[in-house]
């Protein structure tokens, strides 16, 4: 490959006033031997741009260094075909002149270093070679309930084929056993029959030529990657005769729904004492069966224990939910469910009294209409309180409920004939096998506010302790990693469908407690992500969060030592391994974060435009003055491209000064930092290294999930290296920084620079 380097230095936006641009051009020429090196006072204007374009066509410039503003600005102007031209942006404005004193030798040295680093990277960078391939685009939908049926039919409507796998003999899932649901359109204040709509949906799915249905079936295994999943399907139980099959699949929607919380664990609320104490699901099933027998208006009329007419019935809300000993979360649907059931009882049996005992009534949005209507019903009593005891008087066949902390101030006793426990939803996200979470001792990093982070955060990098649902053949475990309580990711507020297994998207109540109304929407969203994944992947493009990135890591396997770090640490389970432990990389599962590159101790993993060698050459290009004066300290900063780098930009926009001792290298993720860079930097004479990256822990903000946490963990190994070199471990520090923490940067940097100064210069300087 020809390397025709062109360096273009903009002197606009006061760059020319603050720096000696002539000197900058000369040092850039001397250090980098470019084909072209010029300055212009308005590089992003038509004339400046034209200069570059002319050089590209006449001088065959294919490695551009644009030393001007941030890579976040004017991207639409400096926009050249990435497959034939490498564009390296050097940030002389936000990261140099806007945060440093004008016409100052240190500012000049800062600019020169940045230009040289940019040129070094441009020279080493190769062009991406997108992995364009014909891929299978069939959507596999696991689960034939409301969410699964909607996912299937909506995939077809978008033009895609579907394979639907349902473990039971019939489609329809959980709600099929339900009697009625609430109105699914505004004003949400009526009850409607559920079965009619569902029957129609089931019919259209069953009659669709584009949907292949496997009933009585489950997934035996899923191997491969998006666009080329190999899915083995088998009978869901030994006693059914469903035949085994294999399907090639593009992407997967997991719509396995929920199961009711185990009723026998609700014995503290009287479950088991009498048939008249039953869960909300059992209530629906009981009356649904009667209705199937022709007694269509029997809901809430017949008493379960003796067939008499019911006179009083109570609901206990949050039976098991919002309780740290049971389900710590709110199951979301139970308030509306109980109100709906209360309405049905009152309609069919107007003499019955209904009591709803609750902590908070949760009827969000326009569902409030339904609650308001119920509040107007004189036969429905809303009782805010906590249950102190439920007992059963067998002689009188009466249930006694003691409620404390009521609105009336005191405790009350309720005697009712039936009691419904509004029990919660548990996601069907696979069966727990054994918990092999590894506790990796992460070393403590400080947060921007100065507080120390939790010293030890369990990094579950490898095992996912579940099975039985997708049975992935992935090296990192059989199921989707849990976020909390069995619900899989997403942990991202802006990106609700982010999943840690590329091409596999959970939907409906397996993902979060959702009612049928919102499960339909959720199914559609997940289908969009599923088809988007195969479309992007077939064009050789990454999916979120590095959407459109056409680079991917290359593994130089002959040099691999089978240490398995990459296969363990990939946050997305993209890398399998063979029997010997050699990585088997799946580009279609990869999100291009570079965590594997950071993990590799023998540096065999690299991207075309981002590699251990490229960054090493950037570090090598730095000028390290030997004279141990304050201004000659050099601090290398690795900054997360998404948050820390923009935070530095915004500091620049606000023209707030930052120490000129620092040299910033943007990284895809702190997790992509290879430990060799620390050694490179320290042996070069860099005095300290600062990592600016995302928050980790439960509320992690790292968009590669584990990247910043892994960087922190790996610093544990680094400390041994430092000790061996007789260097203080304080010379490397990681700070968790948010996008909007830019005002904290001057203090963070100054604090670190002072620390380094107190340690004195790097003794390797000048070697």
């Amino acid at each position, binding site marked *: 490959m020809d390397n025709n380097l062109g360096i273009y230095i903009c002197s*606009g936006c*006061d760059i020319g006033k603050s720096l000696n641009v002539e000197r900058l051009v000369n040092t850039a020429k001397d250090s980098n031997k470019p084909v072209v090196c010029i300055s212009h006072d308005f590089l992003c*204007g038509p004339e400046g741009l034209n200069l570059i374009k002319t050089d590209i066509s006449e001088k065959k410039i294919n490695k551009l260094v644009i030393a001007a503003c941030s890579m*976040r600005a004017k991207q639409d102007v400096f926009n050249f075909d*990435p497959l034939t031209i490498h564009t390296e942006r050097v940030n002389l404005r936000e990261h140099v002149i806007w945060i440093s004193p004008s016409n100052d030798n240190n500012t000049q040295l800062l600019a020169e270093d940045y230009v040289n680093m940019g040129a070094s990277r441009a020279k080493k960078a190769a062009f991406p070679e997108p992995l364009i391939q014909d891929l299978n685009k069939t959507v596999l939908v696991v689960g034939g309930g409301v969410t699964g049926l909607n996912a299937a039919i*909506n995939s077809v*409507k*978008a*033009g895609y084929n579907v394979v639907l796998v349902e473990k039971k003999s019939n489609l329809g899932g959980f709600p099929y056993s339900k009697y009625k649901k609430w109105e699914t359109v*505004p*004003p949400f204040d009526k009850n409607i029959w559920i079965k009619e709509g569902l029957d129609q949906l089931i019919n259209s799915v069953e009659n669709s030529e584009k949907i292949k249905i496997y009933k009585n079936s489950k997934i035996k295994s899923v191997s491969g990657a998006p666009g080329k999943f190999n899915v083995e399907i088998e009978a869901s139980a030994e006693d059914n005769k469903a035949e085994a099959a294999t399907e090639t699949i593009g992407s997967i929607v997991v719509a396995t729904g929920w199961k009711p919380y185990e009723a026998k664990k609700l014995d503290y609320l009287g479950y088991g004492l009498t048939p008249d104490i039953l869960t909300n699901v059992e209530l629906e099933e009981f009356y649904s069966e009667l209705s199937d027998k022709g007694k269509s208006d029997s809901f809430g009329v017949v008493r379960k224990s003796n067939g008499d007419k019911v006179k009083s019935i109570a609901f206990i809300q949050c039976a098991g939910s*919002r309780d*740290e000993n049971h389900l*710590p*979360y*709110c*199951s*979301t649907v139970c308030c509306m469910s109980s109100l709906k059931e209360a309405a049905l009882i009152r309609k069919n049996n107007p003499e019955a009294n209904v009591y709803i005992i609750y902590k908070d009534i*949760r*009827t*969000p*949005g*326009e*569902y*409030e209409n339904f609650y*308001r209507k119920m509040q107007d019903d004189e036969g429905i009593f809303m009782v*805010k309180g906590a249950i102190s005891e439920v007992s059963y008087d067998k002689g009188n066949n009466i249930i006694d409920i003691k409620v404390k902390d009521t*609105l009336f*101030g005191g405790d009350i006793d309720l005697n009712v004939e039936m009691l419904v426990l509004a029990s919660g939803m548990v996601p069907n996200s696979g069966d727990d096998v054994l918990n092999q979470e590894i506790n990796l001792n992460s070393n403590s990093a400080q947060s921007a506010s100065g507080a120390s982070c939790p010293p030890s955060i369990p990094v579950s990098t490898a095992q996912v302790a579940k099975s039985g649902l997708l049975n992935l053949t992935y090296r990192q475990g059989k199921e989707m990693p849990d976020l909390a309580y069995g619900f899989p990711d997403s*942990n*991202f*507020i*802006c*990106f*609700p*469908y982010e999943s840690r297994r590329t091409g596999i998207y959970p939907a409906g109540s397996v993902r*979060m407690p959702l009612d049928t109304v919102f499960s339909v*929407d959720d199914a*559609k*969203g997940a289908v*969009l*992500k599923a088809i*988007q994944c195969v*479309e*992007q992947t077939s064009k050789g493009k990454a999916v979120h*969060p590095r*959407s*459109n990135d056409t680079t991917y890591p290359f593994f130089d396997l002959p040099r691999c030592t089978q240490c398995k770090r990459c296969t363990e640490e990939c946050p997305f389970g993209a890398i399998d391994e063979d029997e010997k432990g050699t990585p088997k990389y799946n580009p279609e599962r990869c999100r291009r974060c570079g965590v594997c590159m950071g993990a590799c101790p023998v540096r065999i993993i690299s991207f075309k435009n981002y590699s251990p060698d490229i960054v090493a050459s950037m570090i090598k290009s730095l000028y390290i003055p030997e004279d141990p004066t304050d201004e000659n300290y050099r601090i290398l900063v690795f900054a997360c491209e*998404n*948050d820390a780098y*923009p935070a530095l930009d*915004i500091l620049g926009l606000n*023209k707030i000064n930052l120490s000129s001792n620092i040299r910033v290298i943007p990284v895809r993720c702190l997790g992509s930092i290879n430990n060799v860079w620390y050694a490179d930097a320290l042996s070069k004479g860099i005095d300290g290294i600062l990592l600016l990256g995302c928050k980790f822990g439960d*509320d992690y*903000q790292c*968009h590669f999930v584990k990247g910043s946490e892994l960087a922190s963990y790996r610093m544990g190994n680094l400390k041994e290296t430092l000790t061996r070199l007789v260097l203080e471990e304080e010379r490397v520090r990681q700070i968790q920084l948010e*996008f*909007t*923490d830019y*005002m904290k940067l001057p203090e963070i940097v100054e604090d670190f620079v002072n620390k380094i100064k107190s340690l004195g210069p790097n003794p390797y300087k000048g070697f």
Partner: protein
Amino acid sequence: MNELNNENPVLIIGGGHSGVSAALEITEAVNKKVYIVEKKSYIGGRVLQMYKYFPKLCPPFCGFEINTKRIKSSTEDNIKFLVSSTVEEINKEKDGSGYKVKIRQKPQYINDNCTVCGECAKVCPESRPNDFNYDMDTTKAIYMPAISTYPLKYTVDENYCKFTACKKCEEACKYGAINLNVQENIIELKVSEIIFATGWKPYAVEKLDNLGYGKFKNVITNVMMERLAADNGPTGGKILRPSDNKEVSNVAFIQCAGSRNENHLPYCSAICCMASLKQALYLREKNPVSSPTIFYIDLRTPGRYENFLNRAESDKNIKFNKGIVGKISEDNATGDLLLDVEDILSGKKNKFRAEMVVLAAGMHPNIKDDLKGIKIDGDIKIDIDENGFIFNENFEAGIFSAGVAKFPLDVYMSGQSATSAALSVIQHKVKL
């Protein structure tokens, strides 16, 4: 799905979180053109004015940065933005192929040459109330609307710029980026689908006479509280009350200010409980001696958000009072507020003194008001319910909604609804 390319584009009205999300989800799945019409001069919407998102307490700019990167890195360049623009007319095409839409774009005084160097604002002699900070401070009449915007450029406030009488900014700009003589643009587009992603505004809480907003300086709204807490807000992230810039510790949060009230917003705005819990935590973090009190009817923290409620409840300085605030009056001497509270749990009537009151103003969907300004061909059915939401999509017509235009939703669920709307658009394309 390249064959879809030659059809008419999709129109997305509203460039907030939902609109931008829908545009990205569509264009990353199919090679289709999307036009986003946004009334402000930048995209990102109201969420950018939030200090942090619940429940993670992470800054909105983080996700927004990823979204702008997704836009910039797209090689197909399929997302077009019309900022400072409003839709004026929607006419149904007789052949059923979609809609002809007329869009009015305010004069673009600043062109793409702008480098955000800031020289213009330095010389601008005029100032304006800063709407990004809910008018709690001012900017120059030529200004950057937020710390990071897309498109990245300055904007001119027509109501405060003196135009030809001044022109100092034009003279100061070295890049020919400012032209105060440009005219507005009228843009006509033929589109085949429309997504309403028109978002919301805080309910006009001055209509709640008894709560004193507008009369008493230290009664503010929840959206203002976000700006007070924000490091890039009018107080640099210190929670200071408006009357005397005193740092507050005793703050009352009043839930359902307008919501769940048949005379105001009959529905529950769904986000305010989480928002107030979040703001109570802001206060606790910024001021260790602070003691927020939350007055509520029901605490609504669905699903995993229950964790967030537990987190707030575990802080003993945060008090919860299931009670209705009947009336607020002001203590003239101190600027403090006196609340008449009916404690629902005890039934007692109490007085409560607070240094500042934050009203949890409900979400008022914009679409009903927006549609008043749009001339619509009578044949088009936009199914707006009595509360002003478009919950039902009109698949045949290709009219969809996302985010708070659809239902009172938080950011997470807005993203979900935008993704779902993106699929609807693709399905409609397939059918055409």
